[in-house]
């Protein structure tokens, strides 16, 4: 039956009333999106506004407390770290790196996972089984272990860390893309494209992928959060972002040694990480809630 039609022809057909508009009305999307946006603005503008050099050490002024401590001062609002570097400057600079890691790694994961998933879902049969095997291998392999050997092997740098984390976080994309592709492949518009003479590749690129974008974005948001945390764990094990680059994960791992004396060294980047990841996840939750019901409309 022609399902619920809200007199659609009546509204002016200019914008695209797809899931996006519904998403923008979602509370979680707004809140999470606001948080993410806040950090993006911080990452871009922060280092200009607070222009202290995040790498400038001052060994004589190490581990100064933050302003809320009686001994703190406004020269270093969040205090200094174990090498006397300004924590606020590092936090802002770290936002760039952590966001780069989150988005970069999630992007690489998306590239791998979506490509594999779309191929598996679209071609099915032998291709599907081969990709399923790769997936089983990936799932069966301890990820941390892979990460460590890979980071040894490639030289450690922010880019390496992004690449390695990306290479470890594509399974969810694959699974989601594969099943969504299987579903979409059956739809009549794909058949219509075939009838119009489109090749498989063209169908995947122009018919299937655009319709996966919302699901992929949801996975992307979760993976971005996971990637930021994965970097923190790698830093804990000593194979994360190379210092002196101030990623938040590294700041936590470094601050851990002075956790009792200067809890703020852990709490400040920890809170930043928490807020960002929680924001990203909230965004993802919201997007999924907004996109899932009646995915067709």
């Amino acid at each position: 039956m022609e399902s619920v039609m809200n007199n659609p022809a009546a509204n002016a057909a200019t914008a695209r009333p797809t899931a996006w508009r519904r998403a923008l009305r979602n509370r979680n999307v707004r809140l999470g999106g606001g948080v993410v946006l806040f950090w993006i603005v911080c990452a871009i503008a922060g280092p200009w506004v607070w222009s202290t050099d995040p790498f400038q050490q001052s060994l004589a002024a190490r581990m100064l407390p933050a302003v809320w401590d009686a001994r703190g001062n406004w020269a270093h609002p969040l205090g200094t770290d174990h090498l006397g570097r300004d924590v606020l400057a590092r936090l802002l600079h770290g936002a760039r790196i952590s966001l780069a890691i989150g988005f970069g790694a999630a992007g690489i994961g998306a590239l791998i996972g979506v490509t594999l998933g779309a191929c598996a879902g679209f071609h099915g049969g032998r291709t599907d089984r081969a990709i399923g095997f790769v997936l089983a291998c990936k799932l069966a392999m301890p990820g941390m272990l892979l990460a460590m050997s890979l980071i040894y092997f490639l030289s450690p740098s922010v880019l390496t860390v992004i690449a390695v984390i990306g290479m470890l976080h594509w399974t969810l994309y694959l699974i989601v893309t594969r099943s969504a592709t299987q579903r979409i492949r059956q739809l009549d518009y794909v058949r219509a494209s075939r009838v119009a003479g489109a090749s498989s590749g063209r169908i995947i690129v122009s018919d299937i992928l655009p319709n996966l974008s919302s699901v992929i974005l949801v996975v992307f948001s979760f993976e971005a959060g996971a990637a930021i945390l994965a970097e923190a764990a790698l830093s804990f094990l000593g194979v994360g972002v190379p210092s002196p680059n101030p990623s938040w994960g590294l700041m936590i791992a470094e601050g851990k040694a002075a956790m009792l004396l200067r809890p703020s060294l852990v709490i400040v980047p920890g809170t930043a990480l928490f807020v960002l990841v929680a924001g990203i996840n909230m965004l993802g939750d919201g997007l999924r809630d907004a996109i899932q019901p009646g995915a067709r409309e």
Partner: protein
Amino acid sequence: MRSSPAPGSRTMALLDIEGLRIDIDTPSGSVSAVRDLDLRVEAGECVGIVGESGSGKSLTALSVLRLLPRGARLTATRMNLDGEDLLALDEAGLARRVRGRKVGFVFQEPMTALNPVYSVGRQLAETMQLHGTATRREAWRRGIEMLERVGIPDPQGRMHAYPHELSGGQRQRVVIAAALMNRPALLIADEPTTALDVTIQAQIMALLADLQRELRMGMLLISHNLAVVAAAADRVAVMYAGEVVETAPARSIFADPRHPYTRGLLGALPGLDGTGTGAVLTTIPGVVATYHGTPAGCVFAERCDIAAAPCRTTRPPETWSAPGHASRCLRLDAIGAPAAQAAPRPERSVGEPVLVASGVTRTYRQRRGGWRRATELTALDGVSLTVRAGETLAIVGESGCGKSTLARVLLGLERPDDGSVVVGGEYLSALSGPARARLVQLVFQDPFGSLNPARDVHAAVRHPLDLQRGLDLAERNARASEVLDRVGLPRRLHHAWPGQLSGGQRQRVAIARALVTGPALIVCDEPTSALDVSVQAQILNLLLELRERERLSLLLITHDLAVVAHMADRIAVMQQGRIVESGDARQILQAPRHTYTRTLLAATPRLPAHAAREAQPRMALA
């Protein structure tokens, strides 16, 4: 709906609803889905509700059990069932005393109405156990009994089956059996057969009628299919945009429709006798409107061709034209006799063959996991057919007989294992994708799946041209716009997104997309079965018009014999991958030779004019 204009003569009805109003909170505001609705069902009576999609039929039915969607608010002045005040019952009370006990409910989708992880037996027995009306063992026995009653073979064994092991028709029978376990006083059936084959639809409808009579149940039958309602109901209510616009005994509503909407619906139905082939159907322009708040005037005014100024400001009162026959229209006087269907078009000439398929065979290998031998399924078995220029060939047959497979092969989407397909003088298998696209195109059943939600209308229509070589963008754009004009899509919708279109509009876009490459043949796989009658009429008219104007050949695949009768020049009947009968449409419809064709014809419900029950009315009106 009062069965009589005299308020004093109210008898105790089984179901008595008065002043029902349902509002639904949506993100874009509160929608008034049902307004000021009265409905009575007497014991042993079958009341039908018809109306276009979105007119509020399901909500009305669900409101009896208060199973409304989240955000729906229900108010009513009276809502009695069997003497009990439903409005006074809370959720728990309703669940305990009404749902599944006094009222049984049959839903539209048999495929999903049963829980896939539990056995049929459990889902039958639980209805009684839940209400404590029987012990486990008694419930089980009654389950078997009911399965037998609804005509499922080996009921004892089937109790242990899971839903996926049953066919759609069997599942619907199980759903009916489950609804009847506690011998309810009222059975509500919401589109019980829409998803089923015609033959099975006939069986299920007959079953429901039998059961209703046998158990002396009241029944509320909801369907968008006028013929189905005509065959089963004692009284009919026509709903439009949340209101009952006309209510009458079944016989008189079809014989003497009063409301312009009812007349529109009836006029839009193609006839089955084959005499009307090619005639233009009457249509109702536009789609059902949604109201936020109570409309000032007649809800149908927007689409009514005889609407006058007062129609938009004054709410029409209920007018009684005969005992039991009421309608809400201010312009009853302006309505003449029911519009006679226009005269059939002259005989048309057919030309050269555009498509010749010979001996097409397609088998599917079904892997059953592991190394077990794959089983073979012959979906097409030596099918040969010819379609000539300007001709419409209809392919009919039961579900799973291979119609869609044939369509896919003819479109080059799938290669036949054997046999050949020649289109426009060229072997299909030798053509490139874009070259093929200039010869054959297709229109689908599901208007919602046929458009890529990520492309706007114009881009969707242009897409096949994008894949052709040698046309620059301006040319392609111009051609797409031109085709969209030709299918009658308003200009303001040329750049709309599919999500903003109604089903009929989508189908127009799909047809435009099929036309844009200028093909010789268009394959239409169930082009209207997902559409309302009024919209179906629009689409059929469009196809007919295009056929005339562009000398298009159509290959029409459908279940609906009325559509076939209306459109087809020739008919091919398929069964199990083979063409069992083919020939001139009129001849086959009037004198079918193959048994399967006869069954198909017999199962197709007809309006009272053709129905046998017309002769022996069994209405019991107050």
